[in-house]
């Protein structure tokens, strides 16, 4: 009787373990889904990053100078429409994977992810052994005459066994088969759960450095980026304005206006050569666009002054009457004769 109880207890324990594993996987899945669906907040991103100057706390918890700076920087980049992953990548590029509180499941850290799974799997083995032993004991203390209920379910097994095999031996064999089944099921669950956990909670995946177009619908539209860029430029933050206009240009690949604004912002940020590289291919397609000539000419004046003067002269010849930039460009060219 005690053997039967022990078998039952073993089965209950195994079922409990399986349910626990399944629930853990479901919880992880749900948590990952929620992270994807909820609006990204500064605290959420900061909580996934370490504080550089305290190292034991997250950037969300610490009041250290650099943790405060990190929160401000995260806020600024979120306002610019950066995704949480892109912000984490930004910090990872500077501090390495250490800065992530959940390092990606690759390289050495893969071992850290795999270890709990291996331990869990190893833990299942003694449990399975106990189950098998308990079943063996139950079979020895169980009925020695065939129980009616067992006739139907083991016809195939019986037909393959020697004539003189006892029910006890058959019960032991069945127990071993079932025990092995449990072990296989638990191991599969443990490994599956581990793989799922690593896949879901394996931390941020690396993403390309600048591709705002891939950000989802929560991100602002091109108009929002343009407005932000203008506001940042007005505030004198040319570098951040460049980022905003880059995002707008990526969202509106057929619109030239964001590129012109990006060109101006690049010039203001001291990156005139980049502006020239951006705008020259456009001139080949739109050689008579005065706005393009104005931005390109301004950029070229720093990067390639003779070309800049030529481009601006062409701007003057094509600009419509009353263009606000004409007087300034004329003065500029007269002051810098060819």
């Amino acid at each position, binding site marked *: 009787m005690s053997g039967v109880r022990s078998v039952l207890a073993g089965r209950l324990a195994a079922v409990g373990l399986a349910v626990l594993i399944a629930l853990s996987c479901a919880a992880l899945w749900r948590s990952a889904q929620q992270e994807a669906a909820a609006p990204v907040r500064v605290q959420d991103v900061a909580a996934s990053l370490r504080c*550089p*100057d305290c190292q034991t706390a997250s950037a969300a918890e610490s009041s250290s*100078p650099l943790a405060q700076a990190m929160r*401000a*920087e995260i806020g600024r980049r979120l306002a610019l429409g950066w995704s949480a992953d892109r912000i984490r990548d930004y*910090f990872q590029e*500077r501090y390495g994977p250490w800065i992530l509180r959940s390092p990606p499941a690759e390289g050495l850290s893969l071992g850290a992810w795999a270890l709990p799974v291996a331990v869990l799997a190893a833990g299942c083995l003694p449990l399975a052994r106990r189950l098998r032993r308990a079943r063996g004991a139950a079979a020895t203390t169980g009925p020695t005459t065939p129980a009616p209920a067992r006739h139907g379910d083991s016809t195939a097994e019986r037909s393959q066994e020697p004539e003189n095999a006892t029910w006890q031996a058959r019960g032991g064999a069945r127990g071993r088969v079932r025990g092995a089944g449990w072990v296989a099921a638990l191991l599969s669950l443990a490994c599956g759960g581990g793989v799922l956990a690593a896949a879901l909670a394996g931390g941020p995946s690396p993403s390309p450095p600048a591709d705002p177009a891939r950000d989802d619908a929560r991100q602002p539209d091109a108009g929002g980026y343009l407005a932000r860029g203008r506001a940042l430029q007005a505030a004198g933050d040319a*570098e951040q304005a460049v980022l905003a206009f880059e995002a707008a240009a990526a969202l509106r690949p057929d619109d030239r206006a964001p590129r012109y604004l990006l060109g101006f912002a690049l010039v203001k940020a001291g990156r005139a050569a980049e502006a020239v590289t951006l705008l020259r291919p456009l001139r080949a397609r739109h050689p008579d666009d005065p706005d393009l000539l104005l931005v390109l000419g301004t950029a070229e004046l720093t990067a390639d002054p003779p070309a800049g003067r030529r481009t601006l002269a062409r701007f003057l010849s094509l600009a419509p009457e009353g263009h606000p930039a004409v007087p300034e460009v004329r003065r500029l060219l007269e002051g810098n004769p060819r």
Partner: protein
Amino acid sequence: MSAARRLGWIGVALLVPGLAVVLAHGLRTGEEAASVAVARRPAPALEGATLDGRRVSLAGLRGHVVVVNVWASWCGPCREEFPYLVETAPRLAARGVRFLGLDVRDGLEPARRFVEEFGAQDLPHLSDPDGRLALDLGAFGVPESFLVDRDGTIVQHLLGPMTPQWVERHVLPLLDPR
């Protein structure tokens, strides 16, 4: 010996050397905590206003070996480090090295007083009141120094005060022989 016991012993046999390796690594890391060879990466542009109101950028120093020193007037070890910095900077400047200070999360007035106290006004010190430039650089705290080669690549990251040994070991090899 039962299978479970055998498994246990195998576990212990694997765990003990593993712990020993981790411990040894930790101790070794402690010895070398002051100097960190970083994965080579491009230095950020680090552009901004200096404590005396000029515009300076790290990108503008391309072509020179640059030592970026991260400091703050409220930082004790920075106070210990500064006399060496002030003495070394002109000596290395003659060999083409440029120093760029980065004053992190500091008040403008205390920072200016700090610079005057040590006679470091001749060196450019970028003001970084919100710590944004320090983060862009990858700083963990103060004082720290980043060694940037002529191509604008960060090649060394020193945690803690700068020492003659660090300069000799990492900065001098980047310079042309005299």
